[in-house]
């Protein structure tokens, strides 16, 4: 007879499995989330001026540059791994797909939450759905993020059904996901092109593929239909690059070190590298926190691909800076140029050098630290493009207020806590098959008595 005390929901989700005690780290994260919630309420009551240091010279600050730009780029592991496993059929990486998709799903949901705090008229966030200004890059970003979050939700849903059943809903989703994808992608094409012809072509291409699958000419995983994964890759490619395109219209306001017609390509390539690095990073951390074996083989594979992606980015960057005649700006001492060089050296050159050495690329620690360099470089790049590289008059300055930091930190903390809870309740990791888990619990209970 077990005298287990009745545990609150927090203890059940995040506390020790036996006693329900929350460890210190979890308590800190919960506190950070609590502070952020209070500050968000304050922000809604008194407005942005009283809670942030944003001003007319810097209308975009930490929340856009970090929460949105970095949040989206660091969630790129979702589409890169999904493409690797489900389109390129490299099944070796199957073990890390689901955690990557969950990271991405949480990342995007938190980006939306960050936006709801940053937008001045947040209660109108739905406007781009019905007010179409298709020449605006932000319109495209909004649509893509909205649709891709839906895709991620559908890609992660099987984990929920594996654990909790609901076979009839699962069957419904399996049946209608592909037609739903065709519908939303066609609508998206219509909104973006304002052309009947393009809309028809998109519908035809996706419809043709759907027909091939329905006829059995193409086989697909029942829970992860081809069209779902394809939509994920297409939407991700579009908005990862479009976040860069946002800054195309700012030749007057963004430093020559970062403003280039190639912004969309640069943002996309760096997002791919950040996605791979994030998978290495969160797998390593996850294995420590959840006390699971590390899939070193998988990470080594990612570590092999990473230097290639980074090298492509470096090459593009060099060609771009030289072709635009911005070399002298790069070598002129200024706060911007210093941070530019740190971004390049720490975020690209150092990881390439590290990963080319076999000692590093074969060890878990080496892969982790190289991945961390890439992530730091990516974060710095987005901060550079969004804040540091912004040109203003000499008397105009910006540094985030403590409340801005608190919201951003709270958002990241919430992501970590939700991921932890999800990993406990849902089969996020491959070995967490519900059958095996139940057997293990029975064994444990029997051993106690």
């Amino acid at each position: 007879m077990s005298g287990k005390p009745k545990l609150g929901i927090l203890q059940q989700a995040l506390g020790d499995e036996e006693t329900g005690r929350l460890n210190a780290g979890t308590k800190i994260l919960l506190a950070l989330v609590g502070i952020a919630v209070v500050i968000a309420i304050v922000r809604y009551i008194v407005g942005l001026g009283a809670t942030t240091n944003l001003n007319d010279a810097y209308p975009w600050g930490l929340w856009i540059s970090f929460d949105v730009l970095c949040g989206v780029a660091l969630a790129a592991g979702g589409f890169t791994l999904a493409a690797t496993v489900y389109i390129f059929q490299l099944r070796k990486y199957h073990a890390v797909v689901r955690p990557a998709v969950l990271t991405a799903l949480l990342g995007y949901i938190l980006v939306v939450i960050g936006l709801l705090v940053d937008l001045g008229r947040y209660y109108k966030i739905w406007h781009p759905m019905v007010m179409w200004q298709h020449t605006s890059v932000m319109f495209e970003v909004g649509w893509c993020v909205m649709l891709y979050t839906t895709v991620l939700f559908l890609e992660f849903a099987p984990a929920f059904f594996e654990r909790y059943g609901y076979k009839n809903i699962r069957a419904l989703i399996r049946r209608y996901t592909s037609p739903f994808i065709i519908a939303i992608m066609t609508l998206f094409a219509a909104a973006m092109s304002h052309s009947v012809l393009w809309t028809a072509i998109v519908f035809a291409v996706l419809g043709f593929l759907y027909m091939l699958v329905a006829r059995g000419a193409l086989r697909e995983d029942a829970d992860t239909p081809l069209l779902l994964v394809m939509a994920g890759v297409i939407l991700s490619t579009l908005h990862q690059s479009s976040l860069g395109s946002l800054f195309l219209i700012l030749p007057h306001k963004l430093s020559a070190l970062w403003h280039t017609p190639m912004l969309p390509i640069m943002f996309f390539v760096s997002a791919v590298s950040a996605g791979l690095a994030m998978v290495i990073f969160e797998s390593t951390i996850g294995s420590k926190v959840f006390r699971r074996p590390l899939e070193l083989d998988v990470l080594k594979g990612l570590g092999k691909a990473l230097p290639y992606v980074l090298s492509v980015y470096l090459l593009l960057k060099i060609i771009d800076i030289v072709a635009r005649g911005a070399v002298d700006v790069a070598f002129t001492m200024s706060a911007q140029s210093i941070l530019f060089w740190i971004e390049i050296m720490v975020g690209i050159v150092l990881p390439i050098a590290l990963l080319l050495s076999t000692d590093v690329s074969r060890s878990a620690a080496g892969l982790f630290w190289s991945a961390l360099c890439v992530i730091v470089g990516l974060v710095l790049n987005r901060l550079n493009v969004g804040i540091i590289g912004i040109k203003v008059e000499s008397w105009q300055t910006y540094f985030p207020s403590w409340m801005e930091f608190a919201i951003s930190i709270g958002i990241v903390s919430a992501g970590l806590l939700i991921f932890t809870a999800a990993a406990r309740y849902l089969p996020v990791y491959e070995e967490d098959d519900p059958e095996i888990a139940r057997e293990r619990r029975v064994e444990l209970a029997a051993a106690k008595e």
Partner: protein
Amino acid sequence: MAAKGILIDNTRCIGCRGCQVSCKQWNKLPASKPEFFSGPGYQNPRDLNADTFTIITYKEVEIGGRFEFLFGRLMCMHCNEPACASACPVGALEKLKEGPVTYHASKCIGCRYCMMACPFQVPKFEWSKAFPLIRKCTMCSDRVLAGEIPACAKTCPTGAIAFGDRSQLLHEAEDRIRHNPSVYHHQIYGKDEVGGTGVLHLSRVSFEEVGYKTDLPARPLSSYTRAAMSAVPGVVVGLGVVLGGTYAIIQRRMELAGKAESSVEKEVESQ
């Protein structure tokens, strides 16, 4: 009504700031607290803000041994192809065919992309409000559409602010330069900047010296994003074909490899 414009002749301006006052009166804007700052200006406030749609800028320079004021005018330039209208995701900013670039508050989501995009840094934000709006000069579109002239043009005592069809104002500006070449700097600010603007300026000395932004491209800023945006449908189709094709090819290869294995097994068994 043909596209209207405004011609600001800084050589006729006397810095009375009547335009600032009448603008506040017509738009019912509160006064801005005086801001003292070091630098070449005496204007108040220092820059446009949510309650100030236009400012006269001051710069004192030495010309021919005498100290003179150079006056400039900060206001929305009502561009022919506004970057703000192109950037706004919900079309809250719109260039009317009558000339003014207007703001539809009901559509605005407060994303502030227009503030980033404007090359003249014109749109300002109501940071102090819980339900903020973007604020900028409207070229008194309500007056203009009713056949009247903007408040600032009506008030100016020296005729420094002229209102009319943009094309006519352009001719007028060229005439003034041609007939008084020593009085004017030979440039019409706004003729070609970022694709041409509805508000044109004339000056006694170079615009850079007065404090105007002079490093702007001649093409409209929206042209910088056109290529990227028009590529979107193509990317959807292209990636759809490439990904679908790759998937089909890889699957076919795996099938063939599977068949080859099993046929080899059958051969081995049959022997």
